[in-house]
């Protein structure tokens, strides 16, 4: 018995834990019913999806948001035809390929290549978990992705990954991109079920 406890202490953190506010897949093992587990997994994914790092660039309107308070982007910028700003002030007027710390004071300007808004059909701001879930599964509204491609977006995409490396002055998204990828895969494996509301 004593041996067993010691083993559990040693193993448990590696298999089931909460990393930076995001539960790992193993923490959902206790949910026996697959559909319920799938919904629970999606709700965990929502902690990332609805984090300001992600929501700010999935706005419903023509204006990105910024900061943990999700204020309208300042200076005012618009989505533009290619989700990349207006002629004369594309996103790259200010945003480079990497985050750049300010030299005059605290903070940084975020950067990544590419740096742009999610298309408006992928807007998440103001939507319910059920709506977001239905939307990200719908190839008409997720950039033509099947579930495998959706997993790749969550697990591998560089701009998504920026959410965990957002630069000085911004709170990173919960967990890690790797955990999000695993949650997404498990969610798909359990039927990619959506919450009711």
């Amino acid at each position, binding site marked *: 018995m004593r041996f067993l406890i010691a083993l559990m202490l040693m193993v448990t953190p590696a298999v089931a834990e909460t990393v930076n506010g995001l539960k790992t897949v193993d923490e959902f093992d206790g949910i026996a019913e697959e559909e319920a587990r799938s919904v629970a997994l999606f709700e965990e994914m929502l902690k990332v999806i609805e984090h300001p790092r992600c929501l700010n660039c999935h706005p419903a309107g023509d204006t990105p948001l910024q900061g943990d308070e999700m204020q309208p982007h300042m200076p005012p*910028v618009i989505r533009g035809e290619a989700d990349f700003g207006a002629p004369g002030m594309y996103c790259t007027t200010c945003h480079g390929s990497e985050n750049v710390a300010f030299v005059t004071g605290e903070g940084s300007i975020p950067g990544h290549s590419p740096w742009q808004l999610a298309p408006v059909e992928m807007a998440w701001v103001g939507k319910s978990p059920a709506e977001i879930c239905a939307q990200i599964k719908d190839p008409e509204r997720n950039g033509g992705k099947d579930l495998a491609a959706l997993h790749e977006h969550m697990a591998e995409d560089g701009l998504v990954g920026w959410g965990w490396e957002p630069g000085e002055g911004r709170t990173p998204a919960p967990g890690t991109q790797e955990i999000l990828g695993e949650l997404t895969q498990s969610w798909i494996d359990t039927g990619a079920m959506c919450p009711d509301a």
Partner: protein
Amino acid sequence: MTTLTVNGQDVTIESEDDIPLLWVIRDELNLTGTKFGCGIAQCGACTVMVDGMPRRSCVTPVGSVDGSDIQTIEAMDSPEAKAVQAAWEKLDVPQCGWCQSGQVVSAAALLQMTRQPTDEDIDNAMAGNVCRCATYVRIRKAIHDAAAALEG
């Protein structure tokens, strides 16, 4: 070590790679027409052209634009830039003048992409350039005038 083409001349930069392009241009290359206003890409006074597109030099580490073609206010000589500057003079746009290099670079870039901008196009392209003297009424009119002049 960073190498750039600045206003048509190849230059090798001594500054460290993480120094903002703004200060390299001003201190190392002695091109002082590009101005410092905020250091955080909020005012646009530092706007230059990098590979043909407007860019806030205050948040651009010089190493990140290695090999690029940089154009500053001193060498803005496109038809659009000339038309913008002529309109600026006709309407006496500048007051204190500190932001105006950035305004002119942004306005010329807008006209290169949008020949006949609407008021909305102007707002969208120019809202990143702050003028504390609030010369905005004249900036707007001058851009329209420059566009008309380019139509000829």
